[in-house]
């Protein structure tokens, strides 16, 4: 099925994503930041659907919004936020941050505008119907070794998280 009203939904979702991003880095309360990040993640999942990537959109919702962000909220509740709310929120690097942001943003925009000819438009090679099957073919065929490395990485992460978060092992 063709996506409908693409322009409207793109600007809506993009606006929500950027709004969420701004809120993430400006909120005093860490829980509000986390909620703003969830807003960004969900609108990005919508954009992934428009990019013919329904499987990645599903993974984004189930893993990011349902898993990782719950972990974040859990940890924010464990570490007390009352004290950190009253403190200074930004460090003295704001000038550096602003400069880096302007430089990076300018670089990106410049490259994109200059290199516009590099991106052929409307050359859609993906079908939505068997997106999952296609990803599975790559994941367990061409990228099998990478897949195994990723599972090893997750194992290491589990052990590392337990070792670091536990008081006495």
């Amino acid at each position, binding site marked *: 099925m063709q996506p409908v009203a693409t322009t409207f939904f793109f600007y809506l979702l993009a606006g929500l994503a950027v709004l969420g991003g701004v809120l993430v880095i400006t909120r005093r309360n860490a*829980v509000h930041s986390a909620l703003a990040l969830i807003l960004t993640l969900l609108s990005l999942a919508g954009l992934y659907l428009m990019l013919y990537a329904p499987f990645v959109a*599903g993974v984004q919702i*189930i893993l990011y919004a349902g*898993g990782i962000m*719950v972990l974040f909220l859990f940890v924010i509740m464990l570490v007390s936020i009352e004290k950190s709310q009253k403190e200074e929120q930004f460090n003295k690097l704001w000038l550096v941050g602003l400069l880096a942001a302007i430089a990076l943003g300018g670089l990106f925009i410049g490259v994109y505008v200059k290199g516009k000819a590099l991106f052929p438009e409307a050359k859609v090679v993906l079908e939505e119907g068997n997106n999952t099957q296609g990803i599975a073919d790559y994941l367990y065929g061409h990228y099998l070794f990478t897949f195994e490395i990723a599972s090893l990485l997750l194992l290491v992460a589990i052990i590392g998280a337990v070792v670091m978060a536990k008081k006495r092992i």
Partner: protein
Amino acid sequence: MPDFLTAYLQSNVTPGEAGSAFWALIYVLIVFAGISVAVMAMNWLERKALAHFQIRLGPMRVGPHGLLQPIADAIKLLTKEDIVPSAADKFVFWLAPLIILCASFTTYIVVPFGRAHAITDLNIGILFMLGVSSLSVLGVVMAGWASNSHYPLLGALRSSAQMVSYEIAMGLAVVSAVLMTSLNPSGTGTLSMIGIVQAQEAQQTWFVFKFFPLGFIALGVFAIAMVAETNRAPFDLPEAESELTAGFHTEYSGLRWSLFMLGEYAAMIAVSSIAVTLWLGGWLRPFPHWLAGQSWDLVFSLFPGLLFLGLAAIAFVGVGRMPKHPYFKIQTAGLAGFGAVLGLIGVVLFIPPVRDRVQDIFWFIAKVAVFMYLYIWYRATFPRYRFDQLMKVGWKVLLPVALGVLLLTAVAGILF
């Protein structure tokens, strides 16, 4: 008959696939209204069944046999004062029930009530359902945190830990069912809810009986995990009233509290319909291959009408047993009217086009109803778990069992 109606009656795909926004909208309205009514009915049934488990009568006052009790409850909740604690985080407090409600209602977009009776069919159907229903944990955490009070916070912490851990066992059980869909000559499985039921139709068996007892164990793991996932007894630690007053919704009252309840029951129906779709053949009637043929089709298509006629008969027996005192005149008349409506529905369900159109919906709902009854039964039977026991069951029993079933299913799929 208008064109769009005949086109609808002849179509054999979901409105989402057919690309008709009008019918999709109608379906959304029907499904959401139906779920709300089902939640109210479930509310009455739960109180009534629990009461009979405990040799009580349950609601008897409002309407005959308390049939109007859910409506009275709804009016009470809607007119109640809506209290927001002064130290609460107002915005998050307001947002939390809405998130739970949206998360549990959005899942119904892909629930297949029949071959043509789903709002749409997504390529990633089951993944979408698991993902969106896992968002409700966010609502729970937000509600607990925003209340700015001890019991809700503890309830929310328990709840988030519990739901995240049981999601893993649930996901692995689902994967073993999805693996079974790939056992066809082309070797490609599917995640689409309708595709999963069609795979069961093609393989001529419900997945619960596939590679017995592997499918059965997977369903068992899922059935346990789904009770924990919806925070129901015996895994209702987040709202254990003896320890945490009411858990994460202690500070909620009135309309917002009723939104939590609506979301909880809608989520129960949603996970039950996942179990039915994956293992119990979705909308397929019992024995579609063993008892095949036109006469058997006819016999099974009579079931919905017969069920409603039976319910009407029960209502009329109830009319006969009402006390004869004039005080009960209105109640008796109400019960008789209810029976008459049920009987009328039963008669309508015998008319051929309705009969053929409705029977797959009937079988789906009947299977879901079994799971809903099981929920009530668990609540009446099992004592509540302790939190460390809960975690132990989730991580040390269900997870290894689900993983083992997945591996054995893969091996069996290669061998047979």
